[in-house]
């Protein structure tokens, strides 16, 4: 088990380095002088010269990369060309908003989707199963921004139950904050339920065919025990991997929902920065998202052996 962990950790470090390199290269590929891109128009020539030296922007790429990494390790991610603020605190603040929504939606989705998927697999080809699959397919076919818009129109405009615009931090006013967050969370959760139910159902169907399930029944175990202790642990592993992937994708795709609901999240920050050509922020957002995705996958890989002990050996 320990070897498995150490191997995963070392691979993670490798991947993180690759992520950093990729982000670096991507930003450097943007047409235009990279120095001007990173520094923007504002500031006097002297200030620019200072910054230029600090980040080695006149040096060849590999040196620039080292400057950049060194900067990051000390928490210096650069300055936003739009606002002049340091990049890291800005991104982190916005990230908190996105993270709360994504995680809450995911937890709700998993808690609903996995039992429903298991149930549908157990009752495969019955009316209940058919209903579950149809609803799930419909849910995952709806684009998130359209669903968000519709919910906003229904609950915000027509019924007036929930606010349309704006955001308040949870630290400030809990109940008002919740009211701003309900709709985006609900939108995300609904769509993820569609995806997860199908996966949970498919892997449960696979497992139900296997002999050890018949063996469990042959011992006289009641169905619920068979499902809970024999089917679920073995069926959950692929769903767990999928959850990791979805979380990563959500971090990227949250931009649209944040635009619809005008939330100050990281996705919207990224899009705004792209329009404003605020490349330090773009770079920072990309890097942070990449790193988090790698960490999520590492976490999933570490949880995996609980559900599939065979993996720990490899």
């Amino acid at each position: 088990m320990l070897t498995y962990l150490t191997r995963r950790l070392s691979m993670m470090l490798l991947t993180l380095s690759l992520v950093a390199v990729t982000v670096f290269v991507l930003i450097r590929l943007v047409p235009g002088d990279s120095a001007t891109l990173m520094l923007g128009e504002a500031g006097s020539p002297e200030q620019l010269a200072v910054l230029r030296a600090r980040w080695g922007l006149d040096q060849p790429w590999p040196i620039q990369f080292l400057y950049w990494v060194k900067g990051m390790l000390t928490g210096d991610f650069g300055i936003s060309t739009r606002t002049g603020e340091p990049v890291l605190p800005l991104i982190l603040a916005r990230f908190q908003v996105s993270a709360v929504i994504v995680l809450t939606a995911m937890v709700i989705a998993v808690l609903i989707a996995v039992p429903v998927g298991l149930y549908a697999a157990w009752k495969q080809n019955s009316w209940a199963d058919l209903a579950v699959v149809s609803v799930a397919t419909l849910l995952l076919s709806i684009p998130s921004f359209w669903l968000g818009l519709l919910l906003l129109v229904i609950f915000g405009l027509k019924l007036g139950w929930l606010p349309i615009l704006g955001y308040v931090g949870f630290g400030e006013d809990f109940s008002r904050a919740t009211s701003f967050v309900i709709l985006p969370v609900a939108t995300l959760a609904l769509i993820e339920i569609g995806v997860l139910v199908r996966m949970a159902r498919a892997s449960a169907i696979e497992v139900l065919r296997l002999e050890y399930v018949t063996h469990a029944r042959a011992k006289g175990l009641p169905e619920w025990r068979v499902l809970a202790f024999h089917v679920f642990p073995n069926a959950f592993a692929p769903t767990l991997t999928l959850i990791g992937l979805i979380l990563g994708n959500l971090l990227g795709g949250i931009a649209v929902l944040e635009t619809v609901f005008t939330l100050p999240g990281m996705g919207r920050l990224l899009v705004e920065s792209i329009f404003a050509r605020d490349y330090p922020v773009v770079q920072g957002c990309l890097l942070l998202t990449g790193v988090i995705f790698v960490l999520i996958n590492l976490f999933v890989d570490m949880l995996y052996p609980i559900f599939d002990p065979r993996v720990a050996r490899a």
Partner: protein
Amino acid sequence: MKLNLIIGLLLVILLGGAAAIGAAWTPYNPMQLDMLNRLSPPSPAHWLGTDEFGRDVLSRLMTGATTSIGIAVTTVLLAVSVGMIVGLVSGSLRGWTDRGLMAVTDALLAFPGILLALALIVILGAGSTGIILALALAYLPAVIRIVRSAVLSIREKEYVEASKVIGNSQAYTMFVHILPNCLAPISVVATSMFGWVILAESALSFLGLGVAPPAPTWGNMLSASQPYFERALWLSLAPGACIALALLATNLIGDALRDRFDPRRLQA
């Protein structure tokens, strides 16, 4: 689930037909302004109403269909052709070629697809070509991974070894025996990708990073409809419904393909 397939195919015909027809003819010129009739609800003259500039929504949807579906088809073909070759070569040859290609692929896979697409748009610039390249590159690592994994499992089959024993060259074995047997997972990933591209393209257009107005795509029409919720709901319902139906069609067909290629069925 035959019903799935039927509904899926019907939708494909509907939307594909709209796209095909839209390329040649639309009831009205999608760009033509008609300020006198702006924001008019659906009527016999304008089946889906008009937008804030008086342009006919149906015509714009049809043109949008041509654009969106056209982009999706091109992107998928591009990514699948390249991905197929790379995955095939990587999986068949193994060794350092494989390790090198996989390192690059994994680096790209470390980013969520949409994010990568966004980053690539920044570099390549918005507009149809940029979008096609960005989306193709963003999904390419996933295609490569899937082809490679199919190749790896097929390589273990005895008929691949048999081909070698008979005296066939590595290249012959790869293209005659391994590749055709990968078509099943490739077709499944192609349909998934198609759905993803439709969604990604409309999301990008919605954000303003895709095809720019006044050229209509479903995404930018949806974006433009936001200020007019109270007055003209049909402006949001129409393009959104189109995207949803397109996604539904790809999902249903993807499911049907997955069922048909279920390994258990092939073995029997």
